[in-house]
């Protein structure tokens, strides 16, 4: 069992993150020397469903579209310095992602790159789909298997650790828990037992702090005058220093923007958490109620006190289903009496939607007065007299089919000639939606598979 410190950097916190973020993290890991790994988290719930749908028309697709762009600047340096990369960018097609990565490796002069894929998260067509229990948040949900676009179980860290022990330099997964991308390298490095709950909890907590990238290093944090952050255009992504006893220190590359302090770490520690005494993951139940956060030096924060309990007997599965259509249209009104003109436009739209039978599925916002805090019922009390210099009227409508959504947003465009005076800047879009439900599946129904691929497999 290795006792040396392990550094884990995170170069991406979601699908859509900055593509140049991993570079400075890799530079810092190389400069520090010693064992290290890099995680790239790029897989959202919706991302996976879209990937599955894309794969229907293009069998070679269905993985993170930006994966090669993320890997290109760093793959050779990571391979040369023994820094494995772990990513969930395989989405609906880890094998397709591996082929693309191997093609990139050949182009970069790394023909011997060892790429591993983790499969088995996709449970469409398996018996598991037939006897799922709805997760507490979706109680009462009934599943029609014929409607399913994607159905994936959150796998844990063990298959990732297996792949690394087999010498993989790049591990590509589909759906797995985000913290597992960090815990996998820790298991492979430290050799923690699979029932060493406190260490698994510490590693999971480190993964949770890393998984959203800059959200722990000053991203999604700045509030001028209250919480100031320098260098947001070059914000440094996080690095966790993990000790064999499960001690965690969060830092970021020297010379980058952002900051790591008690406040940034606390915000991220509680991000998307419900009961702080029981954060359920595939690997362990994490209890953070005794965690302490200590600023040791500028941009160096120690996090201690994670406790673990035995992992749950079930795993969470996300099932994606068709969710109808969303139509959105916007138009702006400015200058004298703009609020009254915008409200008249809104009433006009509502009258037109009644003719289409859509008034109960629509929402109208006055952007500039209120647009994100309100309910669907209109402007909340206290804002009746607010008169901003300009207002953007927004219509959103949910429909079962595309044509109806298009008919609804056309009513916004028609306001050019038929609406109140001075309307301008119409934009509209119609998109199909995906609905997701969560279920629980017994752990023994899953059989994760690890496969090492070479350049021949990519041909």
């Amino acid at each position, binding site marked *: 069992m290795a006792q040396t410190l392990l550094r884990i950097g995170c170069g991406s916190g979601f699908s859509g993150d900055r593509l140049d973020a991993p570079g400075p993290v890799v530079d810092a890991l190389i400069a520090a020397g010693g064992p290290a790994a890099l995680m790239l988290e790029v897989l959202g719930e*919706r991302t996976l469903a879209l990937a599955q749908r894309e794969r229907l028309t293009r069998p070679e697709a269905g993985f993170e579209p930006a994966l090669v762009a993320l890997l290109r600047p760093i793959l050779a340096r990571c391979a040369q310095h023994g820094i494995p990369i772990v990513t969930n960018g395989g989405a609906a097609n880890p094998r397709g992602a591996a082929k693309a990565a191997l093609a990139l490796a050949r182009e970069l002069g790394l023909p011997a790159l060892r790429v591993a894929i983790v499969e088995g998260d996709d449970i469409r067509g398996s018996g598991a789909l037939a006897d799922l229990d709805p997760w507490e*948040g*979706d109680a009462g949900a009934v599943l029609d298997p014929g409607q399913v676009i994607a159905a994936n179980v959150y796998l844990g860290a063990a298959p990732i650790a297996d792949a690394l022990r087999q010498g993989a330099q790049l591990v590509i997964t589909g759906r797995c828990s985000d913290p597992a991308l960090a815990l996998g390298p820790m298991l492979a490095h430290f050799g923690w037992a699979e029932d060493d709950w406190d260490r698994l909890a510490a590693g999971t907590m480190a993964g949770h702090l890393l998984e959203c990238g800059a959200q722990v290093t000053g991203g*999604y*944090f700045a*509030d001028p005058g*209250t*919480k100031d952050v320098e260098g947001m255009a070059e914000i440094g992504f996080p690095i966790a220093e993990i000790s064999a006893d499960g001690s965690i220190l969060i830092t970021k590359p020297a010379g980058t923007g952002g900051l790591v302090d008690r*406040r940034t770490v*606390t*915000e*991220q*520690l*509680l*991000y*998307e*958490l*419900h*009961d*702080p*005494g029981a954060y359920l993951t595939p690997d362990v139940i994490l209890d*953070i*109620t*005794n*965690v*302490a*956060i200590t600023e040791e030096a500028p941009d160096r924060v120690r996090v201690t*006190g994670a406790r673990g309990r035995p992992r749950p007997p079930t795993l969470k599965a996300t099932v994606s289903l068709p*969710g109808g259509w*969303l139509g959105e249209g916007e138009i702006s009104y400015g200058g004298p009496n703009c609020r009254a003109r915008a409200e008249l436009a809104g009433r006009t739209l509502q009258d037109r939607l009644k003719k289409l039978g859509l008034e109960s*599925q*629509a*929402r109208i*916002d006055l*952007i500039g007065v209120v*647009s*994100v*805090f*309100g*309910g*669907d*019922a209109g402007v*909340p009390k206290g804002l009746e007299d607010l008169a901003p210099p300009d207002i953007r009227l*927004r219509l*959103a*409508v*949910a429909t079962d089919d595309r044509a109806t959504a298009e008919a609804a947003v056309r009513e916004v465009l028609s306001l050019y000639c038929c609406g109140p005076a001075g309307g301008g800047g119409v934009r509209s879009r119609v998109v199909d*939606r*995906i*609905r*997701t439900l*969560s279920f629980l599946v017994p752990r023994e129904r899953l059989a994760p598979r690890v496969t090492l691929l070479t350049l021949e497999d990519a041909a």
Partner: protein
Amino acid sequence: MTTVPLHRLAHARAGDKGNRLNLSLIAHDRVHYDHLAAQVTEAKVLARFAHRGATAVRRYDLPNLGAFNFVVEDVLQGGVNGALNLDGHGKSLSFHLLGLEVDALA
């Protein structure tokens, strides 16, 4: 009694899971923790989000961290996949919480 926006005393971040929202609330200065605990009750947070259809609020206290975690049920109008709201994730709602008026420090 004068009041101040909660924003003066604490910071917050929102996260979503389906139609459920969690809001962390973190004291700028830990000496204000007990004051926040007395002021920012589950009932007040539920009332703050009532117009959004919130049905229940659970507060978890984390004195070690100078923080609270609020879990607000049914507040996201169906969540990111169902809401007509521009911000289906409810990510901006941390600042709706911080707009809550609370008693100023004694």
